[in-house]
């Protein structure tokens, strides 16, 4: 084991290297590019055995990833934002092939307007595809999640591809101390891929991805995918425990922080949750009983785990770094649906949208969200979903508009 300062991108590349992947189909896109450059360099230098192929689009890249996995090799690939959406048809398609592989998404806001910094509308657009989704908050978690993702993807009861998500810039370009496990230990945790019947070989003819005519036959395969995705919830803990036994770091389906005696909490995904942690510490110093719940798995959606974690909580500020146009926060909607059908005494939910396109969520905003949530619990009046924006930001925006609308000459 060595400890190094790594960016999230480098940590992702290390995950693929330690998983001893056979094949990396690639296509560059900011902020993912460093991942594929790092892997290409290792392969060119003979430090990684396998093949690296640059495709001409993400649509083709995801196709090649799926078909190579369907041929029985261990595959890793990576993209971001527009690339994930360009390949969306194939995300759905290759998931149906039930050929396990791992795709790293480096989150970035979607066009338009075109931008570079992160939010989660790209990754959440893929939430119904059949890929599992693991959302990371630290660079260490990025590396570790790639290894966990291969174990989950290749598990007999799952056999689905996995997207591991890290936030562009905030993780992808940020160096943090990361423990790089020894390869011998990784091999014990993640043995060589056994493709079983997912392969193409002379003498063993197989048809994969064939057409199905008739809704009942089609439904069978779609239901199977859904149930396989749900199986992740039962195997996650034992795989995570195995990971902890080998590497000393334990990952739950959720990360809970200061929740033992909490009356209020924040719920959010991704690296901005580390900002929430800091706010929790400061609020606790000021006497608040407040905590944080951060789902690591978004697909399958950990409904039971969330209901359990939020039992006894009075009010929850759900912070979505995404915006479903005409609806609101996706995490809020999903959490509400999980709580509505649970038997527990459900907490009151207040919905916030923030962090779009990399917009910061400040400490003061976390404090305000906590106060508003407490006020909602005290009065029983839930405010409408809030779109975080400060007066100063609006002033800056008005300045740009003045320039944009300035007359010629």
């Amino acid at each position, binding site marked *: 084991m060595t400890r190094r300062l790594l960016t999230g991108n480098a940590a992702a590349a290390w995950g693929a290297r330690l998983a001893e992947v*056979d*094949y990396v*189909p690639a296509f560059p896109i900011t902020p993912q590019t460093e991942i594929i450059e790092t892997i290409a360099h290792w392969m060119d230098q003979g430090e990684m*055995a*396998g*093949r690296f*192929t640059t*495709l*001409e*689009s993400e*649509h*083709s*890249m995801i*196709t*090649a*990833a*799926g*078909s*190579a*996995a*369907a*041929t*029985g*090799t261990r*595959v890793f690939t990576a993209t971001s934002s527009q690339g994930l959406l360009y390949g969306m*048809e*194939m995300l759905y*398609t290759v998931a149906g*092939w039930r050929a396990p592989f791992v795709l790293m998404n480096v989150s970035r806001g979607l066009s338009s307007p075109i931008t570079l910094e992160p939010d989660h509308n790209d990754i959440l657009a893929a939430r119904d595809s059949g890929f599992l989704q693991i959302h990371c908050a630290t660079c260490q978690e990025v590396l570790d999640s790639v290894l966990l993702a291969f174990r989950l993807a290749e598990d007999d009861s799952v056999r689905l591809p996995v997207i591991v998500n890290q936030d562009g810039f905030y993780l992808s370009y940020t160096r943090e101390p990361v423990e790089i496990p020894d390869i011998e230990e990784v091999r014990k945790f993640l043995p060589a891929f056994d493709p079983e019947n997912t392969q*193409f*070989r*002379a*003498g063993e*003819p*197989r*048809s*994969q*991805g*064939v*057409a*199905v*005519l008739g809704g009942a*036959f089609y439904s069978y395969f779609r239901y199977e995918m859904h149930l396989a995705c749900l199986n992740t919830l039962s195997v996650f803990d034992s795989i995570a425990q195995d990971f902890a036994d080998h590497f000393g770091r334990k990952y739950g389906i959720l990360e809970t922080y200061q929740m033992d005696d909490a009356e209020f909490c924040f719920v959010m995904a991704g690296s901005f949750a580390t900002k929430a942690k800091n706010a929790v510490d400061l609020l606790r110093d000021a006497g608040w009983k407040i905590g944080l719940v951060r789902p690591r798995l978004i697909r399958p959606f950990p409904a039971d785990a969330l209901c359990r974690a939020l039992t006894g909580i009075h009010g929850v500020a759900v912070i979505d770094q995404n915006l479903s146009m005409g609806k609101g926060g996706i995490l809020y909607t999903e959490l509400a649906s999980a709580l509505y059908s649970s038997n527990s005494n459900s907490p009151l939910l207040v919905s916030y949208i923030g962090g779009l396109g990399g917009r910061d969520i400040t400490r003061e905003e976390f404090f305000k969200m906590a106060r508003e949530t407490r006020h909602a619990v005290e009065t029983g009046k839930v405010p409408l979903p809030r779109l975080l924006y400060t007066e100063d930001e609006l002033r800056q925006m008005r300045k740009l508009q003045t320039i944009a609308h300035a007359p010629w000459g």
Partner: protein
Amino acid sequence: MKETTFKSLKNLSTDHLLASGTAICAGCGGLEAVKIMYDILGKNTVFVNSAGCMTLLSVYPFTPFQGSWLYTAMACAPAGAQGIRDALDVLLNKGRIQPEEDLKVVVLSGDGSSYGMALSATSAAMDRNLDFFYLCYDNEGYGNTGHQSSPATPHAARTATNSGPFGYPGYKKDLFAIWTAHKPAYAATIIGSEPLDLARKVEKAMSLKGPKMFIALAPCPTGWHFDPRETVEIGKLAVKTGIWPLKEYLDGKVIHTKPPRRRIPVEEYLKKQGRFAHLFSPQRDTKQLEEIQARIDEYWAEAI
């Protein structure tokens, strides 16, 4: 290059590897080409299919292939082939499969995919010198959806989206020229009604490494409006009138493998197909017919 084993029709297998009884239309010229090609390539193949008529060859739980199959989507069969080829190469290099377990990778796509949506993926596969076969069955329209015009539709043909008095206003795209601009290992035009020419070309391509690209003109009874029994005759007329030149590209040169000795007028080919009926009745459209003939004459004047 060694001498061909296909000296006469007797050398062609009459016992086809591809099973019959598929959902493909009676008289499909595309299936004719697939059958002959499959006999020669053999069952140690994986067909990588894009959305089109041939997608209905393998409908769960049946397949007419004795080898393997993967359906991808409309734009990306060459990328699917890339992933399989790369994976097989890695497995061979790492000793995880034996050379006798290797497969030939064959893209099977219609003209809608090949001439349009998948052109970028095909171009890129050739850029990467992918070692694969590509068979485009070209029925000159989006056949599986009821024959709307595609970039492969010939001038003046009526389609489901060109029912006006002049038919399709565009001109058939020269995919062979686009492909050969990439300098692939091999490229050829073929047709099922000339099985010896087809067989010799596939045989020749099998000895080469890299992209091996085939466009088969696929007479289509349902889209071109003719009786299924006419498929072979219409195919032969396509060659004899010179509207479908049989040729191959190898080592930077294009050779016509079956130039018609004395080209017969193109209207002999056109008048057998309902999609061109408006050129002959209620009155003869001499201007259109002369233009179509002139374009063929011009092609051959340049070619020879």
